[in-house]
């Protein structure tokens, strides 16, 4: 080895290379496999911050499905209901209940005069 001052602020590459060999890690792939097998074994339980996001994530799928289903039902329902609803609205005549009060009292708003008169004469 060549002389190298321990005061030198740069890396002592020669010493570093020798140390790397001395601390040689051995079978690299076997170690990687071992760590990954352990990580797989422990799975998601390893992640301590999985709480909120994982819960939200778990909820998101059924939540989205339910929202989509509701939207579809709402759209279909409105489309199916709309024409009939308009028809029935057109068919409905204003209903006026004739009582003693309504006979004597003047109409408060636009009431069909013929209808009221006809009811009066019937009685």
């Amino acid at each position, binding site marked *: *080895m060549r002389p190298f001052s321990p005061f030198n602020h740069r890396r002592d590459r020669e010493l570093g290379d*020798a140390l790397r060999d001395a*601390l040689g890690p*051995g079978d690299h792939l076997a170690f990687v496999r071992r760590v990954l097998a352990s*990580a797989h074994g422990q799975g998601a339980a390893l992640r*301590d911050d999985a709480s909120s996001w994982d819960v939200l994530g778990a909820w998101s799928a059924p939540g989205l499905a339910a929202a989509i289903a509701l939207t579809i039902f709402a759209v279909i329902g409105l489309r199916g209901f709309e024409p009939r609803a308009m028809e029935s609205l057109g068919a409905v005549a204003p209903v006026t209940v004739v009582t003693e009060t309504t006979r004597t009292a003047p109409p408060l708003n636009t009431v069909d005069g013929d209808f009221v008169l006809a009811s009066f004469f019937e009685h």
Partner: protein
Amino acid sequence: MLRDLPETELAVRAHAGDLTAFGELVNRYSAQARRVARSVLNDTDDGDDAAQDAFLSALKNLGRYDPSRPFGPWLMRIVANAAVDRRRRKKVRAVEALSPATPTSRSGPASETDRRAMLSVLEEALKRLPERQRVAVVLFDVEGYSHAEIAEIISVPQGTVRSDVFHARRALRTALKPWQDWKEEVI
């Protein structure tokens, strides 16, 4: 390809549950992590166990990693802590004294044998160093971390790191001196 991705991206993916991204991080850092753990523990098997603990701990705590900073020092800090924890738990036996057998009086062994002998001397000299000096010199001269990064990894002031690296180098170079003198004589 995962190999082309920066470590910060891999860390983000691993945090999201992508174990292949985590595997790439393990692939990139396993050698370094094992060397650092071994430098703390002075034992190959214990070092590997500590390195494994560290990777699993890193996976668990990836949410605490700041992607704006380099991944290596963050991981090495976990490795150093895992190794120290393991040593505390196991109460590692006292380091044996270095046998003074150096090849000064031997005649002309083959170069591979020379190298093995030198590495053996170096390994023993490394074992005799105080733990912090071992870690500091390995992180600086082997792994290439800066004094500032090492200070952060082992939680000591930068001046202490400089001092530790200096003392460790001097001790290691001194241990290797007889071997070096012998090599010069042979050459």
